[in-house]
């Protein structure tokens, strides 16, 4: 099999939300694309919807194998650990412990509370006056308060874990040692909270996990702490980033914004379309290693080779979505891969949907004259893209 020289990856710029041009080219070229990131093995890149969905859904592609390989990554620090670096059945054992807290049915019970929280934050913004920072004053507090309450973390500690969480998702200059140090601090903090929950049980997810360990021995102490860290970080960072991304995207598509304003019932469908349309990641990460030779999209991936999958590209695949590069908030086919696919499909997807729906609906209803009111500062992280601050007026 011919191995062409790998091209440098990721393709996307971080100061914007566009999908870089090489993806379109890659989708139109038979086979997978050979890429190399700053660190780690050269990899295959899947860019078409069917190929991406296939790799994410097939057990012959392993995440756990990344631990024993030189995983493709943007910065030196080793990122892989915890539940995202596990395969079934170990992955299933941990995931089932937390899955129940995040089902559609469970999460739906939080809707009135999320709606009220959004209303209070909008009240506070109006009182303080324009311009407000949509990220700091609205998009971040919503998921932070919700995940803190659900997990059992004091929301007052937000400034502290915000710094850790930012650093862990950042690939801006940080050495492997610094990365390990930050992860250690966050683990120590979580270990302290676990100890408190052990002493004084609460009605929250952390207490349920402590019981699963202490009474049923279903996970180790390290797994317990890492799982809490994962829920906390993944439970707010992505939603806090996508909400401003969605607002910005709508402001840049005034016709679509107008349609949504004229029909607030359409918000859930619009959230799905925005999940499809906005490529959150700067590039693919979390490579899957083939455990045997597998053909993907016309390329024979050999056992031991890593495959990266671009969800952003899959969601813009014209072979799957009609007029894929057009934002259509009333699009009927919303079967996007924005939350991934397969065993690692976003655990918090139902909660993220609810927060994005309520957050967007309340904001649009309150501010008919919503507009950009200053310079956007972009995150310089290379995992998730979005504004670090988004000044708005109304």
């Amino acid at each position, binding site marked *: 099999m011919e191995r062409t020289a790998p091209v440098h990856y990721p393709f996307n710029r971080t100061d914007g939300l566009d999908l870089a041009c090489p993806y379109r080219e890659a989708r139109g070229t038979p086979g997978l694309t050979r890429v190399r990131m700053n660190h780690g093995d050269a990899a295959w890149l899947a860019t078409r919807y069917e190929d991406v969905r296939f790799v994410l*859904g097939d*057990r012959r592609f392993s995440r756990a194998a990344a631990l024993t390989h030189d995983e493709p990554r943007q910065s030196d620090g080793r990122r892989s650990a915890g539940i995202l670096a596990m395969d079934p059945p170990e992955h299933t054992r941990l*995931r089932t412990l937390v*899955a*129940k807290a995040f089902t559609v049915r469970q999460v739906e019970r939080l809707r009135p509370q999320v709606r009220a929280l959004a209303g209070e934050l909008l009240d506070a913004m109006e009182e303080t006056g324009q311009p407000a920072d949509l990220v700091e004053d609205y998009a971040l507090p919503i998921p932070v308060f919700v995940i803190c309450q659900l997990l059992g973390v004091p929301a007052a500690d937000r400034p502290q874990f915000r710094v850790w969480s930012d650093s862990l998702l950042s690939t801006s200059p940080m050495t492997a040692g610094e990365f390990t140090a930050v992860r250690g601090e966050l683990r120590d903090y979580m270990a302290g909270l676990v100890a408190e929950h052990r002493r004084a049980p609460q009605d929250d997810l952390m207490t349920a996990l402590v019981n699963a360990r202490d009474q049923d021995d279903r996970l180790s102490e390290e797994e317990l702490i890492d799982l809490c860290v994962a829920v906390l970080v993944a439970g707010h960072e992505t939603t806090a980033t996508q909400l401003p991304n969605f607002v910005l995207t709508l402001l840049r598509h005034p016709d679509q914004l107008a349609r949504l304003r004229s029909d607030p019932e359409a918000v859930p469908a619009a959230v799905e379309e925005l999940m499809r349309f906005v490529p959150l990641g700067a590039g693919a990460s979390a490579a899957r290693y083939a455990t045997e030779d597998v053909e993907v999209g016309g390329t024979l991936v050999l056992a031991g080779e890593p495959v990266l999958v671009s969800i952003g590209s899959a969601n813009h695949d014209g072979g799957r979505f009609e007029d894929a590069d057009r934002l259509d908030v009333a699009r009927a086919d919303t079967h996007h891969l924005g939350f991934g*696919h*397969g*065993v690692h*499909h976003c655990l918090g997807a139902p909660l993220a949907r609810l927060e994005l729906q309520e957050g967007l609906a309340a904001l649009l209803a309150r501010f008919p004259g919503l507009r950009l009111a200053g310079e956007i500062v972009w995150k310089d992280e290379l995992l998730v893209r979005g504004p670090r601050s988004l000044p708005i007026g109304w």
Partner: protein
Amino acid sequence: MTAWHLAVDRDRCMGTGICAGTAPALFRLDGRHSAPVNDSIDPDESALDAADSCPAAAITVTARETVIGPRP
């Protein structure tokens, strides 16, 4: 051995592929939705894991007409 019965509610199913990835011997993706490979199976813990993991709570496991998964 009492057979277990698997059912997927296609109205609820969102096609996440979690069950087909967790228990490929029991569930497969049929287009956009999941479906049991066989409606009737020998008792298998992974069927309960799949039912527990489904975010849409679309999977039901029954034995002797009693629902045993998702577990409470």
